[in-house]
């Protein structure tokens, strides 16, 4: 697709230019980091599997940037930009994919399974749905202590079918805690289309009707729209209006994981989802940014990724002597 065919992101006059550029940077960082990850995986330098959020960067960046400094979040597999928004470096992420000993999980876990919980980012667990109640509990702690903080998590159309999101959303509602749920409604769970997962595929309607949680629906390919909508939800939650949700419509650009060519996605569906990064670029041009300035941001992101990669590659592998460490905060027994 030609750049000039891509519609501009919405005008969103309320979004300050700092945030606009921040979104652009975060999305680029995710895109370029994931490109490196896929390349490293193809070269056999990353083991196991890799999951990317290619083409879903607007949701990850928009939601991540919508959080306030003391807020907390549990990102999923598609939300690398959210980690970056919360202060993770490119090196942090790459160290985790490369299984480095000084990475965020010390080489114990891989790919997107990392966080910085002490800084408010909970490490992803694979079991879909599990993190919904966890952020509800974090939000409960904020409410109990009267702290004006918000806890956020994400899930996909697929995870919407898990018992955990039901229990979590219901608890959030009845406890009226400041939790924000961002739904990556991307037409598929792995190979399974949304229509084979639920009757009404308009998830926002389900969330409002089933759990009485206000749920906006937003174009997930438009970073400014996501940011505006999630930011408003975050602030409502912060003001004590109880849990909030946003359904972002999007589409995975890659397969479910590295081995999946996603042949099951119809070309005409693909055609409906243009590159969110280029879409924001069009808006930035309309905002008055020069092509040079935009390229400068692209280069800066590329440099940041290159530096992060160099740092991550230079990092030490984990020491097998540490194999039995870390299981307990306070070990007992022997």
């Amino acid at each position, binding site marked *: 697709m030609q750049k000039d065919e891509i519609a501009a992101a919405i005008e969103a006059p309320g979004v300050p230019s700092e945030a606009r550029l921040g979104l652009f940077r975060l999305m680029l960082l995710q895109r370029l980091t994931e490109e490196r990850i896929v390349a490293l995986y193809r070269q056999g330098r990353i083991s196991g599997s890799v999951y990317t959020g290619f083409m879903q960067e607007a949701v990850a960046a928009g939601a991540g940037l919508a959080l306030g400094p003391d807020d907390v979040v549990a990102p999923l597999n598609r939300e690398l930009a959210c980690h970056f928004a919360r202060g993770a470096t490119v090196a942090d992420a790459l160290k985790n994919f490369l299984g480095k000993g000084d990475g965020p999980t010390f080489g114990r876990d891989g790919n997107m399974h990392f966080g910085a919980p002490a800084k408010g980012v909970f490490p992803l667990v694979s079991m879909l749905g599990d993190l919904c109640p966890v952020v*509800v509990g974090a939000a409960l702690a904020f409410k109990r202590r009267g702290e004006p903080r918000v806890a956020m998590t994400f899930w996909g159309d697929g995870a919407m079918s898990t018992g955990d999101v039901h229990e979590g959303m219901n608890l959030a509602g009845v406890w009226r805690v400041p939790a924000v749920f961002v739904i990556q409604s991307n037409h598929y769970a792995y190979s399974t289309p949304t229509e084979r997962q639920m009757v009404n595929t308009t998830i926002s309607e389900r969330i409002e009707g089933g759990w009485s949680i206000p749920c906006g629906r937003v174009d997930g390919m438009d970073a400014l729209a996501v940011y505006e909508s999630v930011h408003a939800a975050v602030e409502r939650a912060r003001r004590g209006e109880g849990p909030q949700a946003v359904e972002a419509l999007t589409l995975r650009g890659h397969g479910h994981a590295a081995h999946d060519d996603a042949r099951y996605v119809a070309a005409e569906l693909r055609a409906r989802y243009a590159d969110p990064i280029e879409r924001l670029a069009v808006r930035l041009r309309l905002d008055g940014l020069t092509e040079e300035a935009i390229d400068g941001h692209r280069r800066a992101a590329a440099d940041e990724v290159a530096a992060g990669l160099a740092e991550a590659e230079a990092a030490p592998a984990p020491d097998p002597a540490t194999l039995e460490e870390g299981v307990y905060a306070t070990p007992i027994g022997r």
Partner: protein
Amino acid sequence: MSGEVTYLEAIRAALADALREDDRVFLLGEDIGHFGGAFGVTKGLFEEFGEERIMDTPIAEEGFVGAAIGAAWMGERPVVELQFADFISCPFDAIVTVAAKTHWRSGQRIPLVIRAPFGGGVRGGPFHSQCPEGWFIGQPGLKVVCPGSVEDAYGLLRSAIEDDDPVIYFEHKALYRRLKGKLPDPEQRTPLGRARVVRSGSDATIVTYSAGVGLAIEAAAGLDIEVLDLRTVWPLDADAVLESIARTSKLMMLQEATRATGVAGQVLSLVSREGFELLDAPPVLVAPPDTPVPFAPELEDAYQPSAATVRQSLEHLLAY
């Protein structure tokens, strides 16, 4: 409270003292607020501490255990009550996936206690009598405790609440009102991971925990038998087991969990490997058969180890 208390009251006292001493502590579970819990353990706490700290939950064990993990992440010290330990199959995933593995994966501490009333003898049938501790024994990242005395009911709960790891606290329903003892001192702590010789002896060791402790003592009356109360069943206090059998050379493992579950496998595995030269006789396992817990009194009485069946096995063991 002062003077004599029951096992149940000791649990309540531990909760109340922890709530008083530490703002981060709060309780959540079904019907634990104004109702005081299915067994009355939390009776009066709602009145003293209010609904922010004694929280009734919807029926969503996976959800509220998950939420407790999230609150623990934020530095709180939640204590969850399951209405019956049997229902721990419902939040199983939150426990083994999130609570157990988060510290190892990230260094984040998850100071969480799950209280689970377990055990039979109350004619509860297969869904209100189980001893599900075996599901958690061996799980890296979890600690599992089973008080068998009033003192430990208090002391283990205080230690569990102060511990920085997730702890499952199995309290025995049949002991709630049966066991009585001195009201533990607010300073009383039972260290996690430490078994205790509750009765010394030299002819054999009964390794047991929870309601098994009283049963062992009863069955051993008049014999020179050592009774080791594991107290923490995972991770195991291996040294205490080995030390005791080094003294007695004979071992009976007694548990209320079915033969092929519970702690028996761990203890016998340990002893077979590291106590091979210490034993003079094959160890004996006294435990219910590998069936669910039956309801009818005729069946449950046959199912549960009794002082008589323990005594009989003990005599066999001594005669070996």
